[in-house]
């Protein structure tokens, strides 16, 4: 059994959305209708579905307006995209609008090569009332919204309901704490329902999420939001070590499997019924449903936290759309029109059911495709409920770091060294912190960040 919403329906939804938007949002003086303004949109949505849906958005947008023509250009992974963007800034090849992942936020601001979308929002009093406050809280820096959230996700727990039943666990009550996960995973393996209770890819994003779930900061100076961060914080707190201890203990006891770094491997194991639980982005929900082909029931649950933690929550992940200042102002204005279009309810709903990324705004859930999918697959609600139940504070807003890609990699080194029994959690985190702090110092010095 495949998914009921087919790609064709999805594209139709995206197309209809384009026409609807055409009627609503036009008439901006600086974009005139004579020769169309041509702009490039860079994105990192690879894979068949991602690219197809993006192309459908662009086609719908272009069909809806005579004054602007957008070309979508796939640039590879998020990392590749930021690299190319970095090389293009200051040259004539810089695009008018680009998708950039969450952890590129600080770098994009420091690059001084962007126009905050707040400028456009203020100018035309664009209404953000329908946008999810937790999402805005991530992308607002110093009270200003720099980029428009586009594809947003959180990390959730996926579990195999059939295996839970087999092991005598309640298939409708996913484990929610570190202890419950460990107990369930152990029971799943002991009962013979599976060889692997949980498979967790060594992905630094999970570490960041697990810190935030405990209300702990990743970096100093209020997660780099009160002033530029000068050091990471996880080496001084007990929360970081607690994550690594739990993780390594489960791998050591055989309750958990270490699939290495690529999440593709843990997804494969889960979809093939080789592991009872996995942690991953909500963005892979659609893909897991398709890959597993209905051979077993997939349950979804909140990302775990230690039993005692109370003030924490999830950080929004994913990416946002940035408008670059290197293009003439008519192109910037055209980029803004496109940004508004992709964040409109119809596009967000089409994107949601096609991937699992949840909409950036609430009214997208009223769209017919969203309603239809939610009726059939309630799993699509888990991530957004998780986010909405998260308090907004410095921990759940997520850290801003100019060297975040490197920092994430260093935390992966720390997880790996602990899981493989090479270092104690404290030692691994101290080593990671030393390297990252040095990188932060070089970044702050050469970028003049304060």
């Amino acid at each position, binding site marked *: 059994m495949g998914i009921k919403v087919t790609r064709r329906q999805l594209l139709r939804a995206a197309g209809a959305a384009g026409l609807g938007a055409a009627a609503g949002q036009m008439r901006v003086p600086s974009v005139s209708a004579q020769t169309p303004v041509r702009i490039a949109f860079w994105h990192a949505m690879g894979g068949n579905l991602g690219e197809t849906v993006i192309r459908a958005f662009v086609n719908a947008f272009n069909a809806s307006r005579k004054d602007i023509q957008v070309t979508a250009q796939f640039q590879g992974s998020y990392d590749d995209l930021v690299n190319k963007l970095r090389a293009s800034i200051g040259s004539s090849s810089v695009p008018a609008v680009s998708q950039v992942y969450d952890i590129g936020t600080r770098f994009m601001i420091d*690059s001084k090569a962007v126009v905050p979308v707040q400028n456009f929002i203020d100018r035309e009093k664009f209404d953000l009332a329908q946008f999810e406050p937790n999402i805005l809280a991530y992308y607002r820096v110093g009270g200003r919204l720099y980029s428009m959230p586009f594809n947003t996700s959180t990390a959730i727990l996926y579990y195999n309901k059939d295996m839970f039943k087999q092991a005598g666990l309640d298939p409708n009550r996913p484990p929610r704490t570190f202890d419950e996960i460990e107990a369930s995973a152990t029971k799943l393996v002991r009962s013979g329902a599976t060889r692997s209770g949980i498979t967790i890819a060594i992905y630094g994003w999970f570490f960041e999420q697990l810190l935030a779930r405990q209300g702990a900061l990743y970096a100093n100076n209020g997660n780099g939001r009160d002033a530029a961060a000068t050091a990471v914080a996880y080496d001084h707190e007990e929360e970081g070590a607690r994550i690594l201890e739990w993780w390594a203990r489960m791998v050591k006891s055989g309750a958990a499997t270490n699939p*290495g*770094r690529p999440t593709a491997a843990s997804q494969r194991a889960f979809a093939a019924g080789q592991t009872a639980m996995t942690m991953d982005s909500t963005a892979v929900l659609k893909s897991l449903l398709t890959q597993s082909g209905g051979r077993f029931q997939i349950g979804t649950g909140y990302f775990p936290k230690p039993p005692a933690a109370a003030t924490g929550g999830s950080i929004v992940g994913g990416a946002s759309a940035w408008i670059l200042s290197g293009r003439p102002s008519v192109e910037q204005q055209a980029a803004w029109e496109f940004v508004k279009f992709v964040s409109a309810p119809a596009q967000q709903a089409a994107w949601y059911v096609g991937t699992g990324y949840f909409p950036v705004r609430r009214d997208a859930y009223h769209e017919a495709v969203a309603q239809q999918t939610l009726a059939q697959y309630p799993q699509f609600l888990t991530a957004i409920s998780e986010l909405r139940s998260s308090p907004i504070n410095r921990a759940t807003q997520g850290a801003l770091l100019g060297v975040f890609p490197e920092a994430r*990699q260093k935390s992966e080194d720390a997880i790996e060294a602990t899981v493989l029994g090479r270092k104690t959690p404290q030692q691994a985190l101290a080593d990671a912190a030393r390297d990252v702090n040095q990188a932060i110092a070089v970044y702050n010095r050469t*970028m003049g960040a304060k």
Partner: protein
Amino acid sequence: MSGRTRAGLASARALVQALAYLAPSLLVFAVFVFYPLVRNAQLSLYDTTPFGDLSRFAGAGNYAELLRSGEFLGSLRVTVLFAVYTVPAGLVLGLPLALLANRRMRGIAAFRTAYSFTIAVSIAAAALIWEWMFDPNVGILNYLLSLAHGPRIGWLTDPHWALPAVAATTVWQSLGFNVVVLLAALQGVPDELVEAARIDGSGQWAVFRHVIVPAISPALFFVGVVATLGVLQSFGQIHILTQGGPVGATNAIVYSIYRNAFFNFRFGLAAAQAMVLFVLVLAFTTLQFAVFERWVSYG
């Protein structure tokens, strides 16, 4: 006197002529090799901004940081080990396949194609194929092991197995090229030479050892040098299979350069690493020419 002048003129003319013929390739080398090399050397002496602009003169600072960092020394070790795992294996496996493919029999073209087809497989495609085979849960290697009641091995996640696993991928992918070169060399061995040895009463092994190997020694040497140069610059398979992990077990130097330059935005540091790699490759190649070329007979 005038004769010498004429000779001098002639040789000057020859030089000009030679330069004219060489000009296109010199130009290409200058633009794509020499100029970047000089700029890279300069870059390695500076701190850089994340945009790659020179920020401040650091002297030997980047080099000092490299020597202090355990990560860099580890990547040197991994690089050398990687070459040791792959280059001899590529020759030892490639030569028998080339010998088999050199037989004259019906349908040999099919075998020749089979033995050399990996030349048409990009390293990225090879890595993706092997990634599936290495998968601890759904991969065929662990499935075969389970049939033999062997342990489940985390091929890419166990620090002891990761480098051999990446090396196996590399050897498999490079076999096609090795077979093609060696087969071409084998076909160039004159039949009279082999027949003469047989008539003199040499056995199979003696013919192989004393006739065939010397005759194809230039090709063996060529494959060895090219494979070493290639392996010291390996990137794609590491990027796809392990991203340098686990715990740095596959963090070969080119991958480490990539991470520093295009991920960590530390261009100065990456440039210094590149200079070290340059010296390393130069040393390896010089060593090969100095030690192994003695056994090569170009006759």
